[in-house]
């Protein structure tokens, strides 16, 4: 007995020490520590722009500011004019299409559909002055709006419907004397309000990120690292890392987590192994639209209803529009769990004039390519924006209607509420035929979720994906995932074998008990008989 106890203790010690040794943390934290030290440092400019004489003269137009900028920062204008922020398009190679030029200029979305014909309003977010469809010069450097990105006074603002010109009341001297590296406010003023309101488009980019807490975004936390957009979207010669796949197509020039964190940032090997197939964002952004809601559905087909001849709006309890006569019905959501897809870094887009093969199923406005078996694909979180939007049922193409106009009678939908007329004008603007019929089609748009990175403790737990029920990856069925998946055949066969074994054991045991009892009583009888003799 002593030996057994000894053996048990010995075994226990062996297993215990094995567990201890194998699970000890031996991760080198210096990388993360260096990053933590680097980013909270305050950036200070090497020059004081308020000392420059050229910035003290009276500016009669914003273009004069730009001329002043370029007079010192020569060549910068040429860099800017190469950028997609300026051109609103990029040269892209798309499998099956060849080289195409895609960008805000010509892309279709399932929010306000398209820019062409509506520049007067949309150009509020162009980095130029006066971008309208006909008169704007993309080759005149004076049209570059340096201040919208480089204003550090936080007072610069573009005017509404001025095609990108600033609000005329601004003090351009003060602003031009307070310029520097772009801050979150500079980027956010456009990128947080895309689609016509806060957080309408992305879901992970919204005004809370001007000064977020740690819970909202661990990097941008204004009490902590307070990282600015350009700390990750590294920029050299006005080429900015990163782009959104609603507009871009190729796997290049991406801003990644790995550029700081490396591909093996975890203590646990088993977690590092996940990085082959799972993007960082998948686990580290468990929820998006953490504060303000983002638009999840847009139904254009209900647009145009009027009350007493007037357009009207309906809001939900949080103040989000649920109906606008000019735009239709909306659904919103916050604290949303992303949906998940395979993505290899390349995307295709619905381009104006593409004939829709199947009008019965939702049309993907942008298709993010990827499958499990594709070696470059990883699982990424996405916001899918679902819409119902106008299309031409005869020619089977999406319609880009003319939406914006200053006044009634010009045929713009937002003034006259006439689908046919606005579609006709809109399609004419993009030089495409229109049959005269307007119908509505379901569409989907895929927005990779990259921001609102959570703290470690809120990161996804294994069993949020690895589980039979409610797996976050339930929709990705092209691969086997432990815990989520099983083979019905193996399960049935295995459980069947176990049940048969139990049945066999039970039957055999019962007969044994029964027969031994019988034998026992026979023996009893026998001995009784013997005793009787």
């Amino acid at each position: 007995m002593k030996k057994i106890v000894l053996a048990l203790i010995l075994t226990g010690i062996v297993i215990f020490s094995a567990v201890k040794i194998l699970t000890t943390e031996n991760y080198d934290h210096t990388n993360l520590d260096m990053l933590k030290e680097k980013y909270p440092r305050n950036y200070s400019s090497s020059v004081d722009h308020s000392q420059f004489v050229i910035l003290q003269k009276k500016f009669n137009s914003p273009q004069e500011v730009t001329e002043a900028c370029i007079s010192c920062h020569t060549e910068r204008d040429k860099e800017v004019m190469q950028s997609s922020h300026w051109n609103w398009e990029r040269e892209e190679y798309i499998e099956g299409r060849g080289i195409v030029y895609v960008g805000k200029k010509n892309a279709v979305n399932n929010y306000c559909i398209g820019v062409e014909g509506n520049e007067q309003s949309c150009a509020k977010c162009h980095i130029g002055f006066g971008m309208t469809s006909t008169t704007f010069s993309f080759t005149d450097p004076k049209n570059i709006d340096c201040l919208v990105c480089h204003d550090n006074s936080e007072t610069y603002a573009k005017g509404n419907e001025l095609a990108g010109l600033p609000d005329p009341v601004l003090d351009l001297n003060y602003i031009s004397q307070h310029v520097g590296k772009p801050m979150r406010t500079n980027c956010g003023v456009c990128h947080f309000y895309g689609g016509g309101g806060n957080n309408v488009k992305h879901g992970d980019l919204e005004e809370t990120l001007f000064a977020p807490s740690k819970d909202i975004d661990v990097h941008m936390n204004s009490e902590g690292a307070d990282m600015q957009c350009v700390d990750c979207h590294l920029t050299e010669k006005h080429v900015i890392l990163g782009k959104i796949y609603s507009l871009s197509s190729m796997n290049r020039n991406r801003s990644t987590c790995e550029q700081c964190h490396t591909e093996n940032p975890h203590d646990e090997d088993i977690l590092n192994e996940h990085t082959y197939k799972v993007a960082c964002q998948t686990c580290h952004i468990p929820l998006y639209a953490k504060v303000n809601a983002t638009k999840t559905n847009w139904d254009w087909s209900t647009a145009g209803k009027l009350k007493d001849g007037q357009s009207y709006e309906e809001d939900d309890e949080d103040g989000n529009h649920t109906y606008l006569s000019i735009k239709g019905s909306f659904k919103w959501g916050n604290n949303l769990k992303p949906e998940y897809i395979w993505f290899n870094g390349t995307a295709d887009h619905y381009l104006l004039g593409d004939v829709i093969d199947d009008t019965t199923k939702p049309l993907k406005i942008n298709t993010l390519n990827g499958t499990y078996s594709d070696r470059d694909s990883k699982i990424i979180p996405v916001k899918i924006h679902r819409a119902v939007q106008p299309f031409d049922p005869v020619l089977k193409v999406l319609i880009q209607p003319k939406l914006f106009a200053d006044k009634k009678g010009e045929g713009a939908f937002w003034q006259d509420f006439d689908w046919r007329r606005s579609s006709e004008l809109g399609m004419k603007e993009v030089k495409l035929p229109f049959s005269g019929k307007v119908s509505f089609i379901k569409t989907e748009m895929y927005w990779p979720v990259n921001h609102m990175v959570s703290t470690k403790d809120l990161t996804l737990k294994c069993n949020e994906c690895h589980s039979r029920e409610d797996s976050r990856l339930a929709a990705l069925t092209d691969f086997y995932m432990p815990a989520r998946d099983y083979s019905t055949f193996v399960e049935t066969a295995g459980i069947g074998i176990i049940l048969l074994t139990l049945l066999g054991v039970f039957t055999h045991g019962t007969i044994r008990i029964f027969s031994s009892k019988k034998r026992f009583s026979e023996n009893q009888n026998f001995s009784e008989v013997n005793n009787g003799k």
Partner: protein
Amino acid sequence: MENDKVYIYKSFERFWHWTQAALIFFLGFTGFEIHGSISFFGYLNAVKYHNIAAYSFIILIIFAIFWHLSTGEWKQYRPTLKNIKAYVNYYLFGIFRNAPHPTNKTVLNKLNPLQRLVYLGLKILVIPVMVISGLLYMFYRYPQSGGGIEVLNINSIEPIALLHTFGAFLLIAFVITHLYLITTGTTITSDLKAMITGYEEIETKDENVIVEKLPEITEEVYETR
């Protein structure tokens, strides 16, 4: 009928048996958590513990193989058709009539022909399949990662996982059968006691017992030398 006490299981053998039993139980428990059937340790812990237990098991297997080879005990597992009918008859009929076991358990012949078949099957089929599929499962790297496993050209963990799972079901069935059959020794607990103490009560004085010829094995031990 009288029973003798015979020293059957040596100390390493008992240590091996019980450690293996504990590990198989633990591997099964954590394994079915990884499989999504139960939830106890938490998924990450279940994976970690399962891996540690797996390594422990492999180390134990290496020791056991060495022990089997160095002591010649491996010969106990050589399959034989001799007396197999007698044993089938015994378990199907004789056992209910309190008939004696067809052969005697001895140090040199402690496994009956059915045990030989089943244990051999475990040793050369089920356990190796579990170890190999388990190692593949553990070291499965997607082909692009350059972990060396791409030469096997396995594009999915699915066949590995399914094989490993099926093996686990078989082992459960084995354990159930095993636990039941150890009650069929000379007395209900004699087999259990034997594996704990090493000494087993053995029916020796029954004229119906076919006395296994011991030299059969010892001769061959010499032959192989």
